């Protein structure tokens, strides 16, 4: 962890991590999927369809997606909620509702 300078103004800057807007979350999700399935047309992916079928993500890929999303947004999605994040809309709503925020700097 890089020691951020201890000056007053930097102190408050690091406490409230940047809370992400719904659009930010959608971008993060699309980026994460592209990393796992570079060949898929993720940009054109509709937000109300089952993206796992569309992009052919198997269970291993799906776990890799969730791991990436937890790192990028800080939100951990337990197995019991898998059913609630079937489409991009549901996934983005789920993450935004739970205060998805980019990790603090450093």
């Amino acid at each position, binding site marked *: 962890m890089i020691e951020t300078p201890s000056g007053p103004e930097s102190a408050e800057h690091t406490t409230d991590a940047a809370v992400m807007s719904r659009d930010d979350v959608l971008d993060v999700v699309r980026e994460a999927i592209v990393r796992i399935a570079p060949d*898929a047309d993720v940009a054109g992916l509709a937000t109300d369809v089952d993206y796992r079928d569309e992009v052919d993500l198997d269970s291993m890929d799906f776990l890799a997606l969730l791991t990436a999303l937890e790192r990028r947004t800080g939100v*951990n999605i337990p*197995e019991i909620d898998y059913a609630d994040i079937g489409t991009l809309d549901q996934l983005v709503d789920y993450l935004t509702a739970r205060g998805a925020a980019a990790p603090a700097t450093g």
Partner: protein
Amino acid sequence: MTEIGPDDQVYRMPSLGADMTEGRVIEWLVEPGDHLERGDLVAVVETDKSDIEVEVFHPCVVEEFLVELGELVGVGEPVARITMADGAAASSHPVERRQPVVSAAASGEVSRPAPSAATTARTSTTTTTAVRGRARVSPRARRLAGEHGISLDRFPDGRVVTGDDVLRAVREAGPDEDRAADEPSPATSDARVEVDRASAMRRTIARRMERAWAEIPHYHVTDTLDVTDVLQRIQVHNAELGPAERLLLPAVLNVALADAAHEVGELNGWWRDDRFVASSGVDLGIVVSLRRGGIVVPTIAGAERLDSGQMMEAMRELVDRARRGRLRVADAAEASITVSNLGEAGAASVLGVIHPPQVALIGLGGVRVEPLVVDDRVEARRVVHVSVAGDHRAHDGATASRFIQHLTRRLESLP
């Protein structure tokens, strides 16, 4: 040796050599009550080298001997109680408690800092699994084989397989790939290269399957595994874990399968020169389907030694590397048995084709909900169909059945 208080003034066993750790007083040259001047001799000390007369460095009075004659005493241990004549400190240089002879100067114990990575970097040599009984393969060939997903068993025994041989094989598989492919270029996004590589792979797979099907007298044994309870246990296990640590059914199945292959050794090895060569460990070939079609079969060496968490980690890395075309030499090592898993959403069952010269391939179907009779009652249970493709030259149906029984029993105690 009598007890002495902390502030007692004492005469300690002197160190009379770099390698001396202890000595014996074999003769006192003074009596209790004697007054001694600087340099007076006080005793004869026997070391493993010789008997040496030792002196006092400060005027003092001998009070009491603290050790028996001939008693083995560590350097720095008190041997006599004295009182300093001029009130000077007993000895301004208390002997260090017996330290390892090699210790740095007494006052500042230097703990050698962890040697910098550079100096003792354990060379991160990928553990090149010694391929038992294989043709001799040059290190460069192994590297290139790994990078291009070429199986090494295509080359005839005897002649040394070189990097050029592997490149020739890649070229044969895809004629217009230029020689520069030798250097592992970064994952190129150049579509043309991707297409060639895929077709090259298709042709390689095709040729291998033809040979396998033609040469090996296959038999198949299938069964149904009730995975309801194990899935339930996996769910409980995963409940409080982040995604990075969660387990998946294929990993747990592979642990059980590796254990069973270890138990039923006839399935774990190769058919070579008309006889079965057993493998000591279970080097599990994992069929990984690639997104753009085709498969690669990297190997997890020593799979029988992995628990569910380790197996999951190994599979996660392997799949990631395979799909990024970044397999390592160790990944390309020879498998002793292979598993083909269609994945949770896959078809019900798969009757596989053995990868020569192995003698078995385990097929795992997708997870299905099917009616099963449990305690004389029909219930909806989650199941996976398992099949064993066997080489009849090496073993027979009974072996495969024993394998499945082991697999089933081992699954009950996982993850």
